[in-house]
């Protein structure tokens, strides 16, 4: 009898502890690496940390003040905004069109869908190298084509404006496929009867798109927007190998600026401040998108 009681007690204890034991490794690991990094990043941005000098005086908001006063940061912020804005605009249209046609066709749909996602599998570095090959040097294919069309024969990556275009296109190529997948998932949840009903009500193709398709996929649209904007704001893997931020500083997006600040200029504190700025922008964006998605869900 005592044995039974002991066993019952042990059963109970295990049962009560189970959720915590299960969740512990995942939460502890993520907290120890990512959570720690955020907290430490915030702290670092309030101190003056010099690599070769002892002592780390508290400087309050001075790093931020320096940051917003520096032309390099303002340049990067502007470039990032253009880069992200253009990626979202182009990427969203392309992925929406891609998802719509993939949803529309019946022939070889699985084949085309499989191809659509391929760029998502390629590493950022490989993407950068392939795009560099398309544009770099006098003989690069794009330079040749533009020459043949009677346009400039200067390598696009040597021209500040065009270089920004190139990293934006490479970025769209790299991250839009995942947005396509998200939107396709949304499109597939729409009940075909809705379209049948709209046909009977006399709606045109465009009216169906406006009144059925778009409202039905608003949560997915907002997810896709979130993906496109975070992935672009954080983009580092493509830009560093593709242009290194150049020519000049014409493609130095925030993530690259931050990296150069910390690891080339060894200015950790200001680098950390950039990290926090990116984080705050992303948090604000996610709040907006989540609210939009939530509202769309509530309307249903």
């Amino acid at each position, binding site marked *: 009898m005592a044995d*039974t009681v002991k*066993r*019952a*007690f042990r*059963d*109970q204890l295990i*049962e009560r502890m189970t959720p915590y034991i299960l969740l512990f490794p995942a939460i502890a690991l993520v907290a120890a690496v990512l959570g720690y990094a955020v907290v430490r990043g915030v702290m670092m941005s309030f101190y003056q940390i010099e690599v070769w000098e002892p002592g780390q005086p508290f400087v309050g908001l001075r790093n931020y003040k320096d940051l917003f006063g520096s032309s390099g940061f303002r340049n990067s912020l502007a470039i990032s905004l253009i880069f992200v804005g253009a990626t979202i605009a182009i990427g969203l249209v392309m992925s929406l069109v891609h998802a719509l046609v993939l949803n529309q066709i019946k022939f070889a749909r699985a084949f085309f869908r499989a191809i659509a996602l391929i760029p998502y599998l390629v590493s950022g570095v490989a993407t950068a190298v392939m795009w560099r090959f398309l544009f770099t040097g006098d003989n690069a294919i794009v330079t040749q084509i533009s020459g043949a069309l009677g346009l400039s024969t200067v390598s696009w990556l040597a021209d500040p404006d065009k270089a920004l275009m190139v990293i934006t296109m490479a970025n769209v190529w790299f991250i839009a496929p995942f947005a396509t997948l998200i939107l396709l998932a949304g499109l597939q949840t729409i009940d075909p009867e809705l379209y049948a009903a709209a046909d009977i009500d006399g709606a045109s193709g465009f009216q169906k798109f406006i009144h059925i398709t778009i409202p039905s996929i608003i949560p997915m649209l907002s997810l896709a927007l979130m993906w496109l904007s975070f992935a672009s704001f954080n983009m580092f893997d493509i830009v560093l190998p593709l242009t290194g931020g150049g020519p000049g500083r014409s493609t130095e997006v925030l993530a690259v600026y931050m990296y150069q600040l910390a690891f080339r200029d060894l200015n950790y504190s200001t680098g950390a401040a950039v990290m926090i700025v990116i984080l705050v922008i992303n948090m604000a964006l996610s709040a907006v998108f989540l609210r939009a998605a939530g509202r769309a869900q509530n309307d249903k």
Partner: protein
Amino acid sequence: MASVTLSGLKKSYGAVEVIQNLDLEIADGEFVVLVGPSGCGKSTLLRMVAGLERISGGEARIDDKVVNNVAAKNRDIAMVFQNYALYPHKTVRQNIGFSLQMRKTPKAEIEKRVNEAAELLALTPLLDRTPRALSGGQRQRVAMGRAIVRDPSVFLFDEPLSNLDAKLRVEMRAQIKALHRRLGATSIYVTHDQVEAMTMGDKVVVMRDGNIQQVGRPIDVYDRPQNVFVAGFIGSPSMNLIPAKADGTGITISGKTFGWNGADFPSKLPSEVICGIRPENLRLGSPEKGIEGIVETIEPMGGETIASVSVGDTNLTVLYRDRRPVALGDKVGLTPQTDALHLFDAQTEQRIS
């Protein structure tokens, strides 16, 4: 084999009490059916016995052992689920043998017992298929096999036949009964279907809102329902329940009085009663002779016919076996067999006897 004793059992989710102070005694080897409408707490009760729901108060015992805090796997029970809960990635053989494997039974022994169980349930040719490739009835039998292979002290069934079609259900009912006769294991069977309860149980427990309404042999529950709820729930088509006035001389229903005609009824009757009449105990006749009403629907079932007759603002159901020329809209008179009436106190809804 084991007995199951529940005393003062309680279950609450927050402030909501779904089982209130419930006592029940199940003898060794007995086949007990818990029946009641959905939400009456019968499944919760079963799951508390199984160890799948925590017991909020009171005591559950299997034999002499209090099992309140014993994990399901240590209670020596087996359970058949409503949707069978077969592991889709395992073959029939692996499904049936899983519990033995978990208990580290030697391989040869598992093999032997799985084969025996399969033999018993005619599953031998299906042993290497996966559940996906089986029909509903076959899946049901696999679920049974999984339960019997372990030779547990208590079998629990949670509406095991409700996903089968009508014909198969009748067949499986008989199979489960036969299996019980053969194995003689204590069984608790939950269903919302009172026909299953009547045909299968050694003992029927009628539940409502977390309370036991009546416990007894099926035929006793049918013949002497303890209250209005049980009277209406057990039996198909259901018993007619009509407000009436009764005294020593007879009973007055809808303005018509019928003498007791020798049926013995208690001398002390409350003035307001509810009169229960089973449809087969109502006679159809000419309007002037009985309770007057108009035939509203007729459902010929072949052997018998069920008619619904509107009387005032209620409807009475009549069941008759002869072919009568009754047509919709006919005016008829209904005569109750006074010796087969059930009387309930209109206030307490309890049986008067």
